[in-house]
């Protein structure tokens, strides 16, 4: 038996010259590269000049800001409370702040598979109740705050987080319903998903806000925020249902058949075999829907609710700080990006974990 020499493949790193060559050869590439670098460089230098060199930090007057010519971060120092909390009573900011921390905490915890236990569902319910109590007050010696004064970041975070969490079970039902053998169930789930997906969220919100009170007896009693929340849940559920259905369809039929052959009842086949696999497959699509729903919450301004974007508009509308919309919108943009990026990091890590497991 002859010996086969197994030598490890030498991994060679290409030299700098080789790596740079696609950027400069043939010669038109060089022009594009040089122009591109110059353009990006120019943009970065101007941005740096605006955001740092000529900017006004800390406390300052609007006139000082205008004289400096750059970004007026002082505007955010003076008015951050309006951006974050809208017209929530000034002395009580710790309450919405704590509510946001609670919701974000349980949201981030939900991204870790080790914590996917029934306790997590209980934690969500507890956080929902706690954050509502914190915001609304009226018990435990907390001063009552009418929902008409809720606004800013708590609304954005609350509506999107609770929206997705409550839409999830509904969407699983819808997705399973669309695969049901009972015609009535299947057709009504089909109809629901198709109709809701065919409507713009703006219209759904507008109808929920303005038509509901006209059509329902006592409709005026339903709070606007609750109306928006219901509209968001019903809307997201249709999209999530499709994400989950795509996952369900991707699970090989053999899996369910094998489970049946082992004598598992239908209910358990879904719960133990099909759904967990479907979730793994659909995870990127689910997170995608979540990210979209966070950004969709900005549409609630059309029904008179002040989200964090509305808060930013309010912050620059008191006359004194008019005109500093770049800073306000940039701050809101960064906040949205941070939320969405955290979610997408979570999603990427989970996908990696699932992929490793499958090997």
């Amino acid at each position: 038996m002859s010996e086969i020499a197994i030598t490890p493949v030498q991994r060679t790193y290409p030299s700098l010259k080789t790596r740079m060559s696609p950027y400069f050869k043939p010669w038109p590439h060089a022009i594009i590269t040089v122009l591109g670098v110059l353009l990006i460089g120019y943009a970065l230098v101007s941005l740096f000049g605006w955001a740092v060199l000529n900017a006004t930090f800390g406390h300052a007057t609007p006139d000082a800001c205008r004289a400096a010519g750059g970004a007026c971060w002082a505007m955010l120092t003076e008015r951050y409370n309006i951006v974050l909390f809208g017209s929530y009573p000034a002395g009580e900011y710790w309450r919405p702040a704590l509510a946001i921390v609670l919701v974000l905490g349980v949201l981030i915890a939900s991204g870790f598979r080790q914590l996917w236990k029934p306790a997590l569902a209980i934690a969500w319910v507890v956080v929902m109740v706690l954050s509502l109590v914190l915001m609304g007050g009226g018990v435990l010696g907390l001063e009552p705050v009418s929902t008409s004064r809720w606004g800013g970041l708590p609304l954005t975070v609350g509506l999107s987080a609770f929206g997705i969490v409550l839409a999830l079970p509904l969407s699983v039902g819808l997705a399973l319903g669309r695969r049901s053998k009972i015609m009535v169930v299947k057709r009504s789930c089909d109809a629901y998903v198709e109709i809701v997906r065919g409507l713009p969220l703006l219209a759904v919100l507008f109808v929920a806000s303005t038509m509901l009170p006209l059509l329902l007896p006592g409709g005026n009693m339903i709070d606007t925020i609750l109306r928006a929340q219901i509209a968001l849940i019903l809307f997201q559920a249709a999209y999530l249902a499709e994400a989950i259905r795509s996952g369900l369809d991707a699970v090989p039929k053999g899996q369910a058949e094998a489970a049946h052959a082992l004598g598992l009842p239908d209910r358990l086949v879904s719960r133990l075999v099909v759904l967990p696999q479907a979730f793994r497959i659909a995870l990127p699509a689910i997170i995608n829907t979540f990210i979209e729903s966070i950004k969709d919450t900005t549409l609630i301004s059309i029904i008179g609710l002040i989200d964090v974007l509305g808060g930013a508009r309010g912050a620059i509308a008191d006359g004194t700080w008019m005109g500093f919309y770049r800073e306000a919108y940039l701050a809101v943009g960064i906040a949205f990006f941070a939320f969405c990026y955290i979610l997408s990091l979570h999603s990427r890590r989970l996908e990696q974990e699932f992929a490793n497991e499958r090997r």
Partner: protein
Amino acid sequence: MKLTGRIQGRALGCLTALAMVGALFAPLEAQAGKVLDTIKQKGNLTCGVGQAVPGFSAPATNGELAGIDVDFCKAMASAILGDSNKVTYRQTSYSERFVLLASGEIDVLAHDTTTTLNREGAQKARFTSPNYFDGYTFMVPKSLGVESPDQLADATVCILQGSTFEVNTENFFKSRGMKYTPLVLGTWEQLDAAFFGGRCDAFGGNYGNLAGSRVAHGNVDDYIIFPNFLTLEPYAPSVYGDDQDLFLVARWVMFAMVEAERLNITQANVKDLAASSTDPEVQQLLGAKPGNGKDLGLSEDWVVNMVSAVGNYGESFERNLGKGSPLKLDRGLNDLWTKGGLMYAAPLR
């Protein structure tokens, strides 16, 4: 971007129409006095105000809303309930304001809203006398050397897309046989940047908005806003439909604020004057000589409560829009009739 804006606008228009049709089928609950009675009963007034409209309704540093529209809500609450804090503010968007008024979700609408025939006739809003007169005009850089809008031939004009401003501008230039180049943009911020960046010679808009932009830009003296308006936009608060009693209160609250200014009754001296004034007009307005309150179904000290809470019309104007505010608007048309303005009160007797 522009296209979606227009489509969204249309979709909203359709929905508003739909909601209006819905309102026709809803049981007509509004009977004389019902809304006013409900307000008194629950001890709270729901007021629809603007979202972030400088000088009209915007959050102050402590998060409380402030503005001339907010002041009207406070005046209403103190006249009816004796306490300016008994107001629930609903910050409404422009597209939903009349639907909310029709559905009874808001009792009073004070939302930088122009009185128009359609809004009174078809949408059944009942407007009080105006709390602010605005008008369409142009702002130009002083360096352009133009002294009246008639010299704006061949100018490039910055205009907000999808607004009546487009029509106003078109009518103005057409009627004078002048050519112009419109630069139509979707948001006020874009227009602002375009005008102060020198992309257009003139900036068309309502006086109040233009003055706000000019202050925000800083160099107030470098720009002229023509004081001769092309249109008149009388902004007025409104209530809905058949509730005569609530309408009367709203109408006379506005008149009383203006009359208090004419009689030099201020937040500071109203209590003293109520107790000691010998002027028969002051006595009647402040309820020392009773009657007005009874006619409106209010307590006789309604004007005292009102002026103690928000001051007279002039004080409210100066605090929110005028010299005491960052906007620094002149009184102009909003001055009293005795000083050449349009603000007047029918006799409160």
